């Protein structure tokens, strides 16, 4: 119920929210419209060129196979890990529950490079070990990371953390009373899982499934670095190759990605529809508890296994390579040297990229967190926003999730490198690109926090005469501090790891660590790549730590 009367300032209605919708449209729709203008500018000619482009059918098939395979794997593994963390003995639960989130600090490039050193057919450390153990024959194999199954497995491993985040939050929120009741009625663990746990997880699975599928559709790093040697193309690598041909055919690039955009928008619509009746899945009690569950130390094993696969092994390989003069395919501590680290840190390009990345993260957070807050405010039911404007804001804030990052980079390059707004070559270009890309990630945690806090405190503040800004600063922000911390951590992680957009929008004077790492993968030797990948991990850890400290002690659990 809203408080009205003398002394109560009314919430902004109409025009301010319309201005927000226009701002979002300028950020997201304008670049997209310019790109689509190129696609349809000469009638359907871009689609004729599309039909003639060699190997495109295989690229679409590969994209679907990798996305579906990766998401299926991530859904199974992420749900399994979340379930396991509820079965861990209570004194270990906080620690073990945080473990599946740790792979988020690993940039995709670091994971890919690490696994290349582990599973390259001839010289991969694990392949050598397996051959020494008598598994496989000949001089190569038995495993090959540079293959379609290899790409699916690595994609699935990377996406598992995202699924885990959503599913574990849902499990924690719902508690275990229903499962305990099922067990008390004689249901075994498996039956309880199938008939109680899984159905209750439907919203989390639908949401995480769609999000990870969208991420998988647009993923770039893994197929580019692993698929290239074996001619495995996906849509985002085709877009990137089109952008690297002279003269650049923006129309063709946009046409290549158009099916993904349509799929993305359709999936978000389906997701909204599927989650519309989410109230059906609420837990029976207000205060949820993990009671009546049988715990076991064995539940730690899958979590530790995932941690080893997603973090420990690739990090180990990267550290070994970073300390080697060159990558010889063998671990030889007698030749280890810190020269590669000293050279990288003495190189002005590295220090400049680190400072540009830090500045870009800082500016992006300064812009995208308030923007995400305003957007979240406009989407919760208690604000007086005209329905059409609210629907528009909801759609606009989700669009960049539906776009492959390579396509967004392509559109931003086209838009901001020519009149009327020339930003290319400036930090502003990088920041605008990141804000556009990060909006959904800055929005969702804040929206959840706002929905959880209820309107009473804000209304009391306004009843006491405080304006919207004072209410936000003194009441709402402290209440949603956890959500802000989670938003900041997610934005920091994704911006530091960002790769596809950065490649297209950064100039030599404004390189970020992601584009520098990509350069190293093309023109640097292995130890240089390993050092930069590890620096990226350290930068992510530092940024994430600061964000979570600002967000309070519960942020990591909420992340």
């Amino acid at each position, binding site marked *: 119920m809203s408080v009205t009367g003398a002394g109560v300032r009314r919430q902004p209605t109409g025009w301010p929210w319309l201005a927000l919708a226009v701002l979002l449209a300028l950020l997201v729709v304008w670049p997209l419209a310019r790109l689509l203008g190129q696609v349809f500018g000469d009638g359907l000619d871009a689609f004729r060129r599309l039909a003639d482009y*060699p*190997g495109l059918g*295989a*690229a679409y098939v590969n994209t679907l196979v990798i996305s579906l395979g990766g998401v299926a794997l991530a859904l199974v593994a992420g749900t399994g890990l979340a379930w396991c963390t509820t079965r861990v003995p209570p004194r270990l639960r906080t620690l073990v529950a945080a473990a599946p989130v740790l792979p988020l600090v690993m940039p995709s490039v670091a994971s890919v490079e690490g696994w290349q050193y582990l599973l*390259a*057919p*001839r*010289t991969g450390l694990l392949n050598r070990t397996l051959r020494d153990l008598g598994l496989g024959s000949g001089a*190569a194999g038995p495993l090959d990371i540079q293959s379609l199954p290899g790409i699916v497995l690595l994609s699935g491993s990377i996406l598992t953390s995202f699924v885990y985040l959503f599913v574990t939050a849902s499990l924690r929120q719902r508690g275990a009373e229903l499962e305990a009741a099922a067990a008390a009625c004689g249901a075994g663990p498996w039956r309880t899982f199938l008939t109680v746990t899984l159905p209750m997880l439907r919203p989390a699975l639908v949401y995480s499934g769609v999000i990870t599928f969208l991420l998988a559709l647009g993923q770039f790093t893994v197929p580019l670095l692993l698929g*290239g*040697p*074996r*001619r495995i*193309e996906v849509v985002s690598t*085709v877009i990137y*190759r089109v*952008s*690297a*041909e*002279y*003269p*650049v055919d923006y129309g063709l690039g946009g046409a290549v990605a158009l099916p993904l955009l349509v799929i993305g928008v359709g999936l978000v619509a389906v997701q909204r529809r599927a989650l519309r009746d989410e109230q059906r899945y609420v837990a029976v009690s207000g205060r949820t508890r993990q009671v009546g569950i049988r715990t076991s130390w064995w539940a730690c094993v899958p979590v530790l296994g995932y941690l080893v696969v997603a973090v420990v092994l690739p990090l180990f390989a990267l550290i070994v390579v970073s300390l080697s*003069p*060159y*990558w*010889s*395919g063998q671990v030889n501590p007698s*030749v280890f040297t810190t020269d590669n*680290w*000293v*050279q990288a*840190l*003495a190189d002005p390009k590295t*220090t400049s990229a680190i400072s540009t990345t830090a500045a870009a993260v800082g500016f992006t957070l300064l812009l995208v967190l308030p923007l995400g807050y305003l957007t979240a405010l406009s989407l919760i039911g208690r604000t007086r926003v005209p329905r059409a404007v609210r629907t528009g804001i909801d759609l606009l804030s989700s669009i960049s999730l539906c776009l492959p990052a390579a396509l967004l980079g392509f559109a931003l*390059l086209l838009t*901001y*490198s*020519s009149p009327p707004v*020339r*930003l*290319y*070559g*400036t930090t502003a270009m990088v920041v605008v690109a990141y804000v556009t890309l990060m909006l959904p990630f800055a929005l969702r945690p804040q929206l959840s926090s706002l929905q959880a806090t209820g309107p009473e405190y804000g209304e009391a503040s306004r009843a006491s005469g405080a304006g919207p800004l004072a209410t936000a600063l003194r009441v709402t922000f402290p209440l949603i501090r956890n959500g802000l911390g989670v938003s900041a951590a997610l934005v920091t992680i994704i911006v530091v790891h960002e790769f596809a957009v950065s*490649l*297209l929008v950064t*100039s*030599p*004077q404004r*390189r970020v660590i992601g584009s520098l790492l990509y*350069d190293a*993968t*093309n*023109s*640097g*030797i*292995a130890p240089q790549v390993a050092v930069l990948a590890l620096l990226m991990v350290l930068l992510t850890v*530092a940024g994430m*730590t600061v964000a979570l*400290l600002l967000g309070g*002690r519960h942020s990591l659990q909420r992340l």
Partner: protein
Amino acid sequence: MKLLRHHRSRLGVIIGAALVLVLAACGATSGSAPAAAPVADPDDGGGPAWQAVVDAANREGTLVLYTNSDAVGDEFAAAFNRSYPDVRLVVTHYASGELTTKLDAEKGARTAGADVAMLSSKLWLDDNAGRLVAPTGPALAKYWGGSRFVYQGGRFVLVAATPLGAGVNSAMVQQLGAAPIRTYQDLLQPQLKDALGILPGKPTPAGIQWWYYAARQLGGDAGVAQLAGLNPRIYTGTAPMGTDIASGEIAVGVYQVKPIIDALAAKGAPVSFVPLTPAISTAVDSAVVDWATHPHAAQVFQNWLLSPAGQVALAGNGGLLSALDPATIPGAPATMTRIPADGAVADGILTPEQSTWLEKVWSIQMKLP
């Protein structure tokens, strides 16, 4: 809560210490390269007007160079800085296609980016000749009079050529039972199946041309089919291919450059560069762009590059072929080699015949996307 604060303060100390270490490392300088006497003063013959350009370049203090050449590295930058210590040379490497995309973006935005570009796409340079600035320094007239490598009145100049060959892990070649790699035909040995890597050239036009010329040495279309039968691994850069040769992931990598392999060999890797004969090379053209934010530094750099000092820095170690005749450069190193008069130099402009070959033969045989 106390415990949490205690942990936080410890965390703060650890982060602080790490930052101090990182900053200390950032501040550390690497050993400076030994000074070497320049072959000849690049400003010689410039007069007061040119000196004014050099002074302005020193005030600008920076020069941004885009290149797709792996031969342009730290030593090259150090050589330039010995001649012009007040101008910091910022070298950025791009693959050929990325480089022209970046140039087009900057050209449209007229924004900070490249001052000088060294690339292998004559097509882009021809198309954009109106946006390039001819050298104003003394070196062009003094050393390049009548050269076939000066285009559009000097708006761009072929300053060197990259002789591409094979990077070889000799121990692995021997282990596979293959004969030592010396010629193009040696690349077709069946023992190299699954142990050969190539940079297929696509989408770089000069790279495609290189393979077009190399295919003739391999035995035409039949040779290409034989090469495809070896199931070569496809690479996107010479550096990752060099890494795989050094580790033994592949035994031989073709379309490789000498500086990458030499750098790995200097670190102890069991690799060597084999220059395949006849030499087939790709052009290295250099041009000053008219949207340069350091226009005077750009002119000074281009003049230095066209002078004997720049040519020795670029091609003195034999990694590239020089466009100037080393015999005319007093003090030129013995390793410096001229572009052969009859050698094929891929210029990046595909003929209709080459385009057809790419579409009908090379892309299909190599299953290129």
